[in-house]
């Protein structure tokens, strides 16, 4: 094995060591597995909700964003948005929606890979999954801001409704509508997955760092001494 590759994937654990400290080495793997499952399950749950209230909609209008599609009263909301000159919601984040499931699958595999790499480089593989929830908010904000600020100036209600930045989380308002936005279960699952990965790395480091140090010491007894 080339020394570069062995530095990269880190030291292997011997059978006897594994038998002696099973919990120590299995803990990070188990936590990463939980994170992976959480991430995968999040695909099936809504990431974000918005409820819109107006006098003529006593039952409200709803928008629910999954990582890969938008459901709820999209048609009605698009219909209303055309009065203020906002583009149809289907045009927002088209790439993100089409790629998200593949991205999550890739993160799933990368985190799996991280469990097999016993060096500090494992962190690199987990970076996408850890930053994913933040990326989601940033992306959501970007699109809402882009759509809100780029209203068609010739729209019928352009005199009443000026370009605005919709509220991504919490209470907002536009025209006669009050909006309430919140994260959905899917988002919180992704956050939980990111949290698990961070915790997992604590145990990962605790398990493999001594082995790395010991291996380094063996290779260079002078410094190891």
């Amino acid at each position: 094995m080339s020394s570069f590759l062995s530095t990269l994937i880190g030291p292997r654990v011997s059978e006897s060591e594994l038998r002696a400290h099973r919990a120590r080495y299995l803990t990070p793997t188990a936590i990463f597995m939980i994170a992976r499952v959480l991430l995968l399950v999040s695909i099936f749950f809504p990431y974000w909700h918005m409820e819109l209230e107006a006098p003529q909609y006593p039952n409200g209008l709803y928008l629910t964003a999954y990582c890969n599609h938008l459901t709820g009263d999209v048609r009605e909301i698009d219909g209303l948005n055309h009065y203020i000159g906002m583009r149809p919601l289907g045009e927002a984040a088209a790439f993100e929606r089409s790629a998200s499931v593949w991205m999550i699958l890739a993160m799933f595999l990368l985190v799996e890979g991280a469990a097999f790499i016993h060096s500090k480089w494992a962190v690199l593989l987990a970076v996408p999954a850890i930053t994913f929830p933040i990326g989601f908010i940033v992306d959501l904000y970007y699109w809402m801001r882009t759509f809100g600020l780029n209203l068609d100036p010739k729209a019928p209600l352009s005199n009443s409704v000026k370009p605005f930045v919709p509220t991504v989380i919490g209470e907002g308002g536009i025209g006669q509508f009050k909006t309430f936005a919140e994260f959905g279960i899917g988002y919180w699952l992704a956050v939980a997955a990111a949290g698990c990965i961070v915790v997992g790395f604590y145990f990962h480091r605790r398990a493999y760092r001594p082995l790395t140090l010991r291996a380094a010491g063996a290779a260079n007894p002078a410094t190891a001494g």
Partner: protein
Amino acid sequence: MKKTNPNPRFTRLVAMLLAAGATCACLAPQALAQQEGRRRRAAAESKPVEITAEQSAMLTKIANDRKLNVDDLLAAAKTYTPSGRHDDYVLFSSGGQSGQIFAIGVPSMRLLRSIAVFTPESWQGYGFAGDDDPVRKRLEINGKPVLWGDTHHPALSETAGDYDGQFLFIGDKANARLGVIDLRDWETKQIVKNPLTVSDHGAAFVTPNTDYVIEGGQYATVLGYGYAPPEEYKKSYRGMVTMWKFDRSKGRIDESQSFAIELPPYWQDLADAGKLASDGYFFVNSFNAEMATGGVEKGNPPFEAGASKRDMDYLHIVDWKKAEAAFKAGKVKKINGFSVIMLDTSVSEGILYFAPEPKSPHGVDVTPNGQYMVVAGKLDPHVTVYSIEKVKKAIAEKKFSGKDDYGVPVLDFDAVKEVQVELGLGPLHTQFDNKGYAYTSLFLDSAVARWSLGGEYASLHAEQPWKLVTKTPVQYNIGHLCAAEGDTVSPDGNYLISMSKWSVDRFLCTGPLLPQNFQLLDISQGGTTMPVTYDLPIGVGEPHYCQMIKADKLKSWPVYPEVGWNPHTQMLDPNAPKKGEEGITREGNKVLVKMTALRSHFTPEHVEINEGDVVTWRISANETAQDATHGFCIGGYNVNLSLEPGEFSEFTFTADKPGTYPYYCTEFCSALHLEMMGYLHIKPKAGVSVKPTETTAAQK
């Protein structure tokens, strides 16, 4: 390193993860609810009311200022329904000569809407879809447009003798037609015309599972639109009752599986189907057993006297299961293409029996348990109660007092009669509650009579059985009455409607034509308490009968299930234009317009065609929000459509008058409703002036 027991920190971690997992599991149901996109809304709180001294004083002042007494205040409290609160019951009422049905909420007595059946009605776009309007086509009789009806008796579909809220039927007395309404979208789906008779009266009444809709006749004619002079009345004129087979899966009457039963030319009146103990039978009243032929202009006694001479008429008892078997065995004659079981077959097969009834009665109403038939006397102050058990026994033992002129066996009156109860003058119709009481309208007394039933009902009330309990005056001349689900196997009690024919002084004078008066009575208490709590003027036609159904039994669609829905077929229409498919195509002089309607524009907004073109115009309402209805009208071409959310409509017309025609949305759909319009440009043929105003000036 020494092998240790599992690290306590590790154990803690596992416990934490387990807890996190459990939390996720707990959240999952909420997450699934969120998937539905609906957050739970806090239900309106209803706190017990406490009236302060100050409020009490205010109430007293209002009552005194408005001259209201305590009963009025109580009536108001029983009926007032605040904004947003829904009624407990829906009343489906005949609309009389308006040819419509009215839906009214109870107890608020608010008119919810009308349903067009036999009369074109523009708001619903019923009968205003161009030259070949299918509604107008189905309203034709013998090639003549008959654009009105006299709706009399609505009948809600039943399952096991109880309203199921799926369909509604109504008869047109003037033209012997039956309308079928689907209660998912509250639209008339079918009109059937009786090919035997010109007019009827005993429609519609359904059998307990809505296998058949019964249409009883009225004025005898020569069946099948035949002719005979009045001298041949007894020989050639006949009455009839028709059993219309209802196909619930299709939501339509199947005319090929329907049949009629020939009856003597007595004037058949109202009908009611047996249920439970009397299932398999139905009952029809009759008058004019005298077979009077009138002719007051020739010095003969008028019908009103001639038809009321004898003391007794005949209650018709029909074993419809036997009639159905006879029809299926082919024991019928075709008259005007329709299967009719003739009188001799009815007699030989034991389908038809008569029971004497006091002369010229009106309603026959079966008690909820099916054991008794109550015949209201009209000209006799009693209701006569017949027992189905005694009827069956008398038939089995052949206890006949004779036969009529047509050979129909007449059961012995005393053998089939249970009891006669004297109620007052002009008893017409009877309904029932859940406390063992019956309610009968007294036309001449202008009152509703509450009386106690006997038999198994006797234990439900404190009174002696078969006795008048109380009468409440109503204003005025009550015809039908209707208790909540009061003609089913399980009446609810609570409310009763008096359909008062005259209102005289009850409302502001509206000129010489006055509204009818629907009066709400509170029948929730037994005994002698039965106050009137509301008067609703009905200024559209004279309603006859109505039925009151528990509102939660209705499963009405808030919008059509999908965009492009055809209400005539109750499915998605392949011809419905989708967004992006709009346009105008031409083949010779045939033009196809594909249009969509979406707040706040039609696509296309210009339709350019030529004079003489035959135009087929298809519109989809691409809306899914509740109440986002559009209209579509073309002035001068008699077109107005109601495009309810998701609805697809089609109409055709010949562009025979050139010009520029604005079309527009006739429902105030949005803030840009007025802008929701377009132009139909019909180019004149060569040589015709395009400036009619100048032509007019030149002619002068």
